[in-house]
């Protein structure tokens, strides 16, 4: 049923991908390049989930858009099932949409409020000319059941549903063409906490039953930890730490990951030796238009050394099978202060 790739091959590969926007300062200011995503390399295996975490403006969503081919990278290459993703807008690109889908943060905005839920779930089938109208009706009924919506809700309009039901409808639409990859961009951030868990559980269940690969973008570390097989922590457009979620959340190696993990509210310590120690980051939140020299995190890093101001650390393997970009983990050639 699902479109699995040959074993071993990764479904989605981002190789040294960069995306530069041009921003303007002031009315007559010069254009300044804003590197939203900077040399990011990630892979997602079939049926697995890669979680991307980071604060606002760190390039998470842009990475998601690049992965889907909604935007073309300025550098590097995005490959899906071994093939480079065609430029957005073409016929080939449109065909590929059936195999990769996006789940949005704001389900009400992503749904057309003038069409019923059933019509919208059937839309991808109509676009890609899958099945006869009768088949599509059966398919829509099955999809509604898969995402846990009552069949009669198909006749409702988006504004007549609750937030959780809308997100389920968006998910049903994304699953209609049986995609191999689902990019979830903050899929539960707009939802009530009690509904979040239901939607997250449903996502993992659907992944198990359909073998869908997921790119799960969120700033909520608890949710990412729950769904991901791999986690990448992003800061100012770069991946600073990547690896197994249990390892990263138990013993974060990068100072930024440590700060993020320490910010997870826990009634009792279950996060390793650091326990309840809370690292509060000081300094300005990152601005991609004005990137600090050296390691982008050094102005806010409590452990910064001289090398951090001069040289940007590279993402290199560290213990526990993870990748870390930090001079403290990999001392730069030369003296260690």
């Amino acid at each position: 049923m699902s479109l699995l790739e040959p074993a071993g091959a990764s479904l989605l590969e981002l190789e040294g991908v960069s995306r530069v926007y041009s921003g303007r300062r002031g009315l007559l200011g010069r254009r300044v390049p804003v590197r939203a995503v900077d040399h990011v390399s990630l892979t997602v295996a079939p049926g697995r989930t890669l979680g991307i975490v980071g604060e606002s403006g760190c390039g998470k969503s842009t990475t998601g858009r690049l992965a889907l081919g909604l935007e073309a990278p300025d550098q590097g290459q995005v490959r899906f099932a071994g093939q480079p993703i065609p430029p957005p807008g073409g016929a080939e690109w449109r065909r590929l949409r059936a195999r990769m889908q996006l789940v949005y943060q704001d389900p009400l905005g992503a749904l057309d409020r003038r069409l019923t839920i059933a019509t919208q779930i059937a839309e991808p089938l109509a676009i890609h000319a899958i099945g006869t109208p009768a088949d599509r009706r059966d398919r829509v009924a099955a999809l509604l059941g898969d995402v846990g919506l009552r069949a009669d809700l198909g006749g409702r309009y988006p504004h007549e549903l609750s937030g959780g039901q809308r997100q389920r409808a968006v998910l049903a639409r994304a699953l209609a063409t049986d995609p191999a990859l689902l990019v979830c961009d903050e899929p539960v951030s707009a939802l009530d906490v009690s509904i979040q868990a239901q939607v997250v559980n449903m996502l993992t269940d659907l992944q198990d039953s359909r073998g869908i690969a997921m790119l799960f973008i969120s700033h909520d570390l608890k949710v990412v930890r729950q769904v991901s097989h791999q986690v990448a922590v992003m800061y100012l457009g770069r991946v600073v730490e990547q690896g197994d979620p249990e390892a990263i959340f138990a013993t974060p190696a990068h100072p930024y990951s440590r700060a993020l993990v320490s910010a997870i509210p826990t009634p009792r310590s279950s996060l390793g030796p650091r326990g309840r120690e809370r690292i509060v980051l000081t300094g300005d939140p990152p601005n991609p238009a004005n990137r600090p020299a050296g390691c982008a995190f050094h102005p806010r890093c409590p452990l910064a050394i001289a090398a951090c101001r001069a040289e940007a650390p590279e993402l290199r393997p560290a213990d526990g099978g993870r990748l870390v970009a930090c001079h403290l983990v990999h001392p730069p050639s030369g003296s260690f202060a």
Partner: protein
Amino acid sequence: MSDIALAAAPPGRAAVRLPAGVVAALAWMVLILAVALLADMLRPYSITALDLRARLTPPVGFGGTLAHPLGTDELGRDVLSRLLVSIRMSVLIAFGATVIAAVLGTTLGFLAAHFRGWVEQVVLMLIDFQASMPFLILALSVLAFFGNSLPLFIGLMGLHGWDRHARIARGLAIAANAQGYAAAVRQLGARPLRVYLGHVLPNIAATLIVSATLSFPEVVLLESGLSFLGLGVQPPMTSLGTMVGYGREYLTRAAWILLAPSTVIVLTTLSVSLLGDWLRDRLDPTLS
């Protein structure tokens, strides 16, 4: 919680209760359209038939007779007959021009929103040109160069107000593309035609309809103005504007010549506005 609330109040779309004002407006528009279609059968006299012995006869109730229910003009022509035929002419011009303006403006607005870049620059330049050029001068020069014929006149009136539609369509389409449903549908793999006609247009139709109901009265008034200047509908054809124009001279002695078409203009434009407003609300499923 919300489930219970929703179950208790199923979407009631069956019973539609029309407000009294809308019913009146609807009735008037039906009447106007019926007159426009059946003018030749309804009119008691030819619009050019002179009755010189009954010149400037007042309407029934003001000293007139049933032979000329709305009185006669300075040449003894029946005002009712002329009114019926004028309604047909003015409705034809106003509807034709409004449809042309709406289609032209929306198409250009969508093209600008879709292609951006130089296409958008050209469309915006045309809009600015249209806005900076007094329309009357444009109309005068076109009519002076190409002469006057009814299709040309309707086409010319269609150029009035397209810029507003284009601006609205462009702005709303860009907004829809940037975030939300249009981007979502494109992401599903839909072709631009499907995105714009299937999703963007129905969503912004409410605004465009209101815009169209604003330009309908404007076209009626513009047609009246041009006809009054002698550049619009040419005698022996007649329109509401022509009637007002020629009736103006007799305003003090025979006000009915001017009042009959004026009343029709006011009631028709008011009805169109009322209907447009109501239609906008009805077309929006989130308002109930």
